[in-house]
């Protein structure tokens, strides 16, 4: 992991404050203007109620107390956490399997397969959403999935009219969309493992599961950790795929916090409460990220 150490000449450049200001200043200004200012102003809305049409009124902590009594928040939070857990685990597991497959089975021939599996990542989510709506359709005619169900003698299912089945359709769609990305990300991490270590482990008699368990897994832990943080934060903030596929339905059975926040602020015109929900989401992302970082730091010192 030599790449994580700072090169000495970089250190000397940043020791010069003038250079540091010139180099970092513009980026910092842009960051403050486009990130911090909106974030803080949104946080400010938390204490107000109203909409841009009717104007805003200060209400103190009303929105926050409302948050704890709103059963819709809790059901969306439940969906968000369930979704984040299931998709993150499967996403990284599938991605990791793919990367091992690229490295140890396909070897140099993996380029084509990698491209094909990566392909869904570049497709617009809405297009993928429409595609999966057709795949799982029941009217005007059965989609492929229902045709297969029919072929094996089952009854065609209305996949999107049940929160349980709709959840799994979203999961399948997001896995299809993202596993290629995690495959490539983790593959890049695996390539960083020096060949000689693997060779010598093989000479020592390690093979198959043992090799992966004791050599490959520990050495790819840093990139695995980045993937987990990526994945968890990405899935906690799931929005576009749900919007395109189910629009949160049936009822609010597949409404994540992000969509509930969006509806509250923009459809119901309640910007203050929408910001409060956004604040809750931010806190959750922060807590989860910190938690992952801390647990991983312990692991790294052990290894």
């Amino acid at each position, binding site marked *: 992991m030599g790449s994580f150490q700072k090169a000495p000449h970089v250190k000397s450049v940043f020791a010069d404050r003038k250079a540091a200001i010139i180099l970092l200043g513009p980026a910092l200004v842009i960051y403050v*203007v486009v990130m911090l200012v909106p974030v803080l102003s949104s946080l400010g809305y938390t204490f107000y109620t109203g*909409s841009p*049409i009717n104007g805003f009124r200060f209400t103190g902590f009303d929105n926050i107390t409302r948050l704890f009594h709103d059963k819709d928040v809790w059901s969306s939070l439940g969906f968000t956490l369930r979704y984040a857990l299931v998709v993150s685990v499967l996403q990284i597991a599938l991605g990791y399997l793919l990367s091992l497959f690229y490295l140890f089975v396909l070897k140099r021939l993996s380029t084509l397969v990698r491209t094909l599996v990566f392909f869904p990542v570049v497709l617009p989510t809405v297009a993928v959403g429409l595609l999966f709506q057709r795949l799982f*359709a029941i009217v005007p005619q059965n989609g492929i999935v229902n045709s297969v169900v029919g072929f094996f003698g089952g009854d065609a299912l*209305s996949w999107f009219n049940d929160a349980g089945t709709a959840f799994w359709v979203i999961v399948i769609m997001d896995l299809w969309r993202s596993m290629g990305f995690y495959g490539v990300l983790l593959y890049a991490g695996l390539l960083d493992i020096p060949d000689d270590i693997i060779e010598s482990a093989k000479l020592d008699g390690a093979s198959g599961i043992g090799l992966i368990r004791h050599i490959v897994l520990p050495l790819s832990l840093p990139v695995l950790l980045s993937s987990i943080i990526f994945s968890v934060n990405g899935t906690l903030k799931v929005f576009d795929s749900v919007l395109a596929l189910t629009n949160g339905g*049936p009822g609010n059975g597949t409404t994540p916090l992000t969509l509930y926040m969006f*509806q*509250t602020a923009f459809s119901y*015109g309640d910007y203050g409460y929408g910001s409060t929900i956004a604040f809750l989401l931010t806190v959750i992302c922060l807590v989860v990220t910190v938690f992952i970082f801390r647990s991983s730091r312990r692991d790294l010192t052990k290894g």
Partner: protein
Amino acid sequence: MTTASRRRVSRRLIPVLAVAGATLLALSACGTGAGAGTGNGKFTYLHVTEDPATPAIIKELAGNECTAENKSLPYDDQTIAQAQLDQKVQLLAGQKALPTMFSAGGAPAVTQSLDKAGSLVDVDAALTKLGVADNVLPAAKSTIKALYGGNDIALPYQFNIEGFWYNKKIFTANGLTVPTTWDELVADAKVLNGAGVQPFATGASGQGWPITRLISGYAFREIGPSAMADIRDGTSKLTDPAYVKAAQAVADLGAKGYLGKAPEAVDYNTIISDFLTGKAGIMYMGSWVLPNFADTTANKIGADNIGFFPFPTVPGGKGSIDQLPANIGVPTALSKSAYTDRVGAWTKCIAKNFGSAALKKSGQISGFKVNTPVTTDALTTLVQDKIASTKTSVVWFETYFSPKASTTSWNNIASLVDGKMSADDFMKLVQADQ
């Protein structure tokens, strides 16, 4: 680092901070000033995708009766899906960037809050000033006032009544008569279903109103014309037995399969095509659908083959069969900040000519006076007669709901008719979001 050099650095920091501050100010200035609807020199009309007929009529006017107005302020057309309309309008209003003329929100609550905030032109006052106020039909004016809190803030590009449209050929083939009571309607549906014809063309994908309006239709017959206003005023609740009974009646239709295989997946356009291709025998819809009926490529069953009957009565109910739901479609409003003399000239031209142009071009019935007589087809004449003979009109299910309650009603109606949710639970859910 020495103190001197540190001081030098901090002195150099000052211009950096100044530049940052100036950039911030410049950017925030952009935020408030940009995109105001006034200055683009066009007569911009933001309308819903679901209604292509109205903008087509305005475009026609731009090329004929309103050529001069169009020359000084060219017509410009923008579309948005109705499901996204409310949020778009609120966002534009927040940025003070409302288009010259726009569909002002599906939920009357949104339209009313725009009005309260002073964003909308008082149409009645404006037309009076332009000397063309008598071009709006009194019935249309009173409907607008009833819907939008007593103020006349919308241009009645549509004037609709709602009820059931039926396929005459299918009715004759199955020996059915036009129902006047709910039980007769259900009996007819049973016959159709037995004959392998989907009884009702309906669906709730994207928008749930094609089904929720059956609930209000039933409630108006059961309780009387004040049924939904009572909910608004808090004198009744949706969880009261009479309202739950209405929801139950609609849920029963779904349970028996009369609303199709998977209504949750059927969108507005599919509903229309299910009816116009003869797949389904009956369709609940407003008379805004007349242009679709007149479209000979889409209408496979033929306009002569379509009949109309009002929402039937229910046994022991207080409502009567001649109380038809009436509305002006998605209300079209004028932005106050974009209203100039040139917009006024356009409005005057529209008020004078829209009524006859709409009838002539697509058989659309509007709330404007028909100044040049137009010969209409049988269905249009029938609807005009119905409008003329309606003494008391009623509204629709979500008319007085908050945006959240409307969404809840739309998003859960499929669960109700699929038997996943009881009538009681459905009404509880919608009542809770009022």
